[in-house]
């Protein structure tokens, strides 16, 4: 349970199956043939960071690692590249979650932009060491777009946890 800033509504507990569902959808999105479109955001990273920020006790680092290995195999890239990036991103999100949740959606996006950027840089570094060709500058557009999607993504993914607005003047919270 996170500590919320004043004015934020208390949410219902999250359904673990919903977390799995969003991860599956993001994984399928990443499976689309994006090869010739540069700057596509890594939605799976976005979802992983989102749940790691929101539910740091439910999302460890093992799940992101496993998803990363799956992404590597499906993309035909060096096994461990996405796994390393996702693990580090999840760790940063878990560590910073208390801090990030204190801000509004736009400030949160600014925070996660740093996390996404670190992840992208890690993947870039791994491939550079392994001797791959340069992907071009547009490669680093992905984190920017992913961070820009953060407010929308958090609105959508928190939707099942919101309660109907019922004004009850006598209730303390």
């Amino acid at each position, binding site marked *: 349970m996170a500590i919320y800033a004043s004015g934020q509504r208390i949410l219902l507990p999250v359904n673990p199956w919903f977390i799995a569902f969003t991860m599956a959808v993001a994984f*399928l999105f*990443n*499976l*689309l*043939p*994006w*090869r*010739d479109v*540069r700057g596509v955001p890594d939605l799976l990273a976005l979802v992983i960071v989102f749940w790691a920020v929101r539910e740091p*006790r439910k999302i*460890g*680092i*093992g799940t*992101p*690692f496993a998803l*990363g*290995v*799956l992404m590597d*195999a*499906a*993309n*035909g*890239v*060096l*096994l*461990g*590249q996405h*796994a*390393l990036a996702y*693990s*580090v991103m999840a*760790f940063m999100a*878990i*560590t910073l979650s208390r801090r990030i949740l204190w801000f509004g959606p736009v400030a949160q996006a600014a925070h996660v932009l740093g996390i996404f950027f670190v992840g992208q840089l890690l993947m870039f570094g*791994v*491939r550079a060491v*392994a*001797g*791959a*060709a*340069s*992907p*071009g500058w547009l*490669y680093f557009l992905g984190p920017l777009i992913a961070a820009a999607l953060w407010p929308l993504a958090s609105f959508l993914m928190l939707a099942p946890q919101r309660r109907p607005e019922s004004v009850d003047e006598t209730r303390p919270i």
Partner: protein
Amino acid sequence: MEHSPPPFFNRGPAPVVRLTFFALASVFLMVLDARFRYTEPLRQVLITVAYPLQRAVLAPVEAAGRIGDYFQSLADLQQENAALRAEKLAAAQDLMTLEALRSENARLRGLLDARERARADAIFAEIVYAGRDPFARRIVIDKGFTQGVELGRPVVDAAGVLGQVTRVTPLASEVTLVTHKDHAIPVQVVRNGLRGVAYGAADGTGMELRHLAANAEVQPGDDLVTSGIDGVYPPGLPVGKVVRVDRDAAFSFARIVVAPVAGTDRHRQVLVLRATEDAPPYPAAEEQAKKPSAKTRRTKRGEP
């Protein structure tokens, strides 16, 4: 132990510990994969599991394409049909002469006692998608080793050489394109028979002909075909066209930029060539055989 807090809020190992564990596991995996290729079985399993998902994700895209084809106007199709008929007629003429030439060639080669050129047998495949790795040029085709695709087989499209099969799974294969940075293909200039090796360019968009002297007889517009000396690519397949030749006296080699003729963006259908005849046995070291070895020499010396 007596100083540790009660396990009311037991959360397992600290995040730093977990991160260290999984980061080390990632690095370990990467080293195993890049250096020793021990992870191939794991990768095969994961790819085979993910393949139906990929096809499912692609299904709407393909369906949209098919619906577009369906609503293509009749006039377009008639036009295309006429063009194809004309093309077929021209091709038939070529084919007839080709048959005659082939038999003549076989006879002449027989006279010359030269080895017959293998007629490559081919597997038809479709490009499922261009690989999603932004760092490397690869495509995935819909035939795997259950359909007879083997590692290292050349892949061509209607225009020329596309690349080489670099990973085979049961239902799909991965093709490294000729524009890949680490891909090399032995080529020959059609105009004068000059041989060289074409590599993928460092930026992954074209190819370059490396290690040719600055005064090499290559001009922009020259056609390049495979020379076949590697035993992988059959000789005579079109590879590319020379676009630019920079002869800078500061470097000992010319910088020759080549545009590949095959393209993933233009064709969906490809052929995986297979059953190229085995390379002739490596010529025995005749000089060594002729030269009497030290041992025989000694015995000869000892004889008289």
